């Protein structure tokens, strides 16, 4: 019987418990143990950003994070953002500006955009480009993604 560690954390606002092997990634825990598959496995080595989640409000690659490190923290995934009407503007902007093509990078892009807008509520295009530097879009739809984030920021107080 190999070791599992009991952890408790807040997942999208709800208290959550999980028993995880110590070497497991946070991404594998979310997808395979908790069952939230919105967060994507892209490269598995921190290059593509498809697995981006928020940990205590900071964006991180969940494929590089040990699941045990979630203990005691507040985790937000794309499902958590989708459930909060405050993020409707961001989602709608991605739809209206054509920021979604095949959609595989979209969860990571949305979560990273949320973080970027929390850091820079009124970002310049350069700040958006820098803010999304850790997220790859294989469809190369960057221009429309940047426009979507700019649009989401419009009208923000």
């Amino acid at each position, binding site marked *: 019987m190999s070791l599992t560690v009991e952890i408790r954390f807040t997942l999208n606002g709800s208290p959550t418990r999980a028993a995880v092997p*110590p070497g497991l990634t946070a991404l594998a825990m979310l997808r395979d143990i908790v069952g939230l598959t919105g967060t994507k496995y892209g490269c*598995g*080595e921190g290059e593509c950003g498809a697995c981006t989640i928020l940990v205590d409000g900071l964006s991180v690659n969940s494929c590089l994070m040990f699941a045990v490190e979630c203990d005691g923290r507040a985790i937000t995934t794309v499902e958590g953002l989708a459930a909060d009407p405050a993020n409707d503007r961001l989602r709608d902007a991605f739809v209206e500006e054509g920021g979604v093509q095949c959609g595989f990078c979209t969860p990571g892009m949305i979560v990273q955009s949320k973080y970027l807008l929390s850091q820079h509520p009124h970002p310049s295009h350069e700040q958006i480009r820098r803010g999304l530097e850790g997220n790859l879009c294989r469809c190369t739809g960057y221009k429309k993604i940047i426009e979507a984030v700019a649009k989401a920021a419009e009208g923000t107080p």
Partner: protein
Amino acid sequence: MVERYLAPTTLDEALKALAAGDATIVAGGTDVMPQSQAGRFKLGRTLVNIRRVAGLQGGAKEGDEIRLGALTTISQLREDAFIAKTLPVLAEAADHFASVQIRNMGTLGGNIGNASPAGDTLVPLLVLDAVVELRSAKGMRRLRLDEFFTGPGKTKRTPDELITNIFVPAPKPGFVARFAKFGTRPALDISAVSVGIAGIVKDGKISNVRVAYGAVAPTPVRGRAAEAALEGKTLDAATLAAAAKAAQGEVKPISDRRATAWYRREMIHNLVKKVLADVAHG
């Protein structure tokens, strides 16, 4: 196979865990995780997550030194007002480090312990004359960073020791330090080469010169020939050319998929000129 997981909140607990042997230290995890997932690195019997150890975060002036806690994240290096003011070269290196997500996780101590020849904080720390503080259950010792690395991924740290702090001398008046790295894209690319230069610039002359290179040797290295070409000299076109030539002559890079040895030597030549021009302009 990991048989025990520990997340100590005090340094004593962490050092006790390391003293028991066969432990893997993890902080941000951004290198340990992908290496272990890929099977290139085997986790020890005990996984010691030091992320919650108190007192190892942030920067502060202590006497005539600046202490940087090993658990300071790269994002904190980039955004901390004290570091931006006192050691802007570190903030600049942090700004070009990997990606937002990795900067939010990765730590200064981890970048040093990982000992990559291309580690982005290492070249700036070398020109800042950094010293690494190591602690174990048996005591504390300090090693100069330019004597700390022994090969790619290898250092003089013993398995029971933890990198706890990094100390750099508080910059003296006229101190200037600049850093530049070169890769194929700004984000996430491992440097093909990087260059750091520091010194005290007074009346157009540079002294106490420190030059360091990344990704041209098994470890980040000091550029002693370039330092000698610069020490006490006026920063004019002839000095810049002589230093760039000395740098090009002293590095011994390898060819790999990122760049050929020839290209790396050319880039070292050009980057030394560029960084020196930045230093000359303050």
